[in-house]
């Protein structure tokens, strides 16, 4: 197992390396280079643009730019004032040493921008996922144990509908219903705020929860639909197995058979599914965060795409990809750990 994990980590490094080349290449596909958008939107003169180019090191050949991005430029002389001749040593350390460069828009370190937003996304997404699971698991169990009952029919239909509801439409509907149409009968105010994390200074619990309701509901619905359907079919696969009959035959009460024998095994694939969804807790939900004005990673990424802020986009993509690879590894290890039938050598 240890050897397996070591080998996987080794593979992961190779994978990340390939990904970094791919993503770096993609960003530099932009016609006219990464500064093109800046030049158009701010009407920078060609001379000024050339200076900017030299200052950002964009005049160098692509492979060299990639190496600088990866390993930094403090070992070489760079053109700091942009006059065409290298004058001093660079200050970039490269992503290998945790330096993702500076945001084009704010001119601040990319990592600072990300650090500012990550807590907000973690906060929103972990609550969303927690609530989704708390609702999806009971639905999945009930719907599997009462297959073809009225509840099951309702749950599966709901699950189909939930998976077909795009977040960006559901978000708008939520605002329409719970912000615009439904009013608090006592005060005449909207039932829930339509966006933001809080509307008061400092921490007021009720206010925080009020702001969470709509984004969490929007995000959780899809997950509930997806997880409950998955758990249902996972349980249905286990119910006809021999060891279930054995458990009943030896006289265990139905409740124990169901929860100790069926559910425990049925949850194994669900756990790995959750592990695979963990990257969203970092990258956030672009639609929910843009619709509900939530200052998290998804909105940061969207804004960066609008501004063509390539260093920031690249950083989020690389870190996001690293999270995906990591969560794949976690899912595989968890699977082997939870299911003794699965063995890796």
């Amino acid at each position, binding site marked *: 197992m240890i050897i397996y994990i070591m080998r996987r980590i080794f593979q992961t490094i*190779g994978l990340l390396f390939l*990904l970094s080349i791919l993503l770096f290449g993609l960003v530099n596909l932009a*016609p*006219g280079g990464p500064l093109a958008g800046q030049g158009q939107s701010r009407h920078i003169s060609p001379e000024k643009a050339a200076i900017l180019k030299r200052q950002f090191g964009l005049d160098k050949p692509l492979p060299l730019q990639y190496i600088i991005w990866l390993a930094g430029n403090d070992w070489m002389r760079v053109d700091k004032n942009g006059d065409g001749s290298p004058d001093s040593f660079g200050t970039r350390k490269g992503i290998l040493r945790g330096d993702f460069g500076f945001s084009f828009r704010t001119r601040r370190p990319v990592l600072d921008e990300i650090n500012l937003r990550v807590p907000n996304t973690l906060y929103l997404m972990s609550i969303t996922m927690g609530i989704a699971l708390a609702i999806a698991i009971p639905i999945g169990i009930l719907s599997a144990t009462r297959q073809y009952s009225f509840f099951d029919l309702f749950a599966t239909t709901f699950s189909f509908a939930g998976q*077909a509801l795009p977040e960006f439409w559901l978000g708008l509907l939520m*605002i329409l219903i719970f912000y615009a149409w439904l009013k608090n009968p006592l005060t005449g105010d909207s039932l829930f705020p339509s966006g933001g994390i809080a509307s008061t200074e400092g921490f007021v619990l009720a206010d925080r929860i009020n702001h969470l309701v709509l984004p969490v509901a929007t995000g959780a619905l899809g997950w509930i639909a997806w997880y409950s359907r998955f758990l249902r079919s996972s349980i249905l696969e286990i119910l006809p197995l021999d060891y279930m009959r054995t458990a009943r035959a030896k006289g265990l009460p139905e409740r124990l058979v169901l929860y100790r024998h069926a559910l425990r095994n049925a949850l194994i694939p669900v756990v790995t599914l959750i592990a695979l969804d963990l990257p969203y807790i970092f990258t956030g939900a672009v639609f929910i965060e843009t619709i509900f004005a939530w200052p998290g990673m998804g909105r940061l990424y969207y804004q960066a*795409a609008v501004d063509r802020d390539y260093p920031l986009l690249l950083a989020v*993509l690389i870190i*996001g*990809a690293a999270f995906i690879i990591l969560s794949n590894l976690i899912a595989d290890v968890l699977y082997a750990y939870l299911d003794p039938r699965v063995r890796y050598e």
Partner: protein
Amino acid sequence: MADQETLPTLNIDVPDDPEYQKQVTVPVSVGNQVWRRFRRHPGAVAGVLVFTILALASISAFLSPYPVNESNMGIRLQAPSGFHIMGTDALGRDLLTRALYGGRISLSVGLIVVGIALAIGVPIGALAGYYGGRIDSMLMRFTDVFLSLPAFLVVILLGAIISEGSLPFLKGNSVWTIGFVIGILSWMTFARLVRAAFLTIRELDYVTASRGLGSSDLRIIIRHVLPNSIGPVIVEATLEMGYAIVQESGLSFLGFGIQPPTPSWGNLLTNAQENFTKYPWLAIFPGLMIFLSIISVNYIGDGLRDAFDPYKVLETVGEYT
């Protein structure tokens, strides 16, 4: 297969006795069998119906008496009525007309995405699964690289880059470029499915027999292995159509997809966003179109999955194929 189809299928005199019916095996072609199982799935049949209506309405959008893009400020922001079933937008354009033209865009992007994903994924999976060994591990590493990408974020990046100007072969945010961008990030499931099917099928006796008769690898792959692994691919292709529609409309919603005035279900929602609490029909109807198309496609996919699965037990009595 061809011989089976010419055999009498349903005109055999089968007595009504269910016990007798169980014993009789009537040869039925695979396609026929799948169809008979498929039409038993009420959701799938409803899905086909709804999807066909959406597609036909979108195709015949030109029949609408109202122009798609010309504004008519005299009738701006009218609520749904007999004249404008979905109401009109801020420039006085008929929303139904625009939603139907948007349907053309969204559905064609969906088709293009599925086409591109099949064109990349099936050959990669087939080569990896058929030859195995080093080719397999190289192709699968390549697939892993794409699977490790935060797909939708990359789609946003590419959409942003494309709207900046034109790349070689890809000009601006057209149906083709958006379909291409989503398609090159959607083929991985096909590669994996086809590879898995090929790994099993290449070991079967009829493949060995064909090889013994001197068939080339290409012939074996195309004539013998591919047709027998097509079931899961068709199911996945159907579901992929739904994902593609969501991604296209999401991308257009964020402003990196199809650009106005060309309508797409996604950018109709963006337009609505400014004032939708006052004029809710602007937000409700385009989203409803997205919802209906995706749910119908998902039900069709579910029906196809059941129909292609030989181990799925059908509850209705009388299945004697």
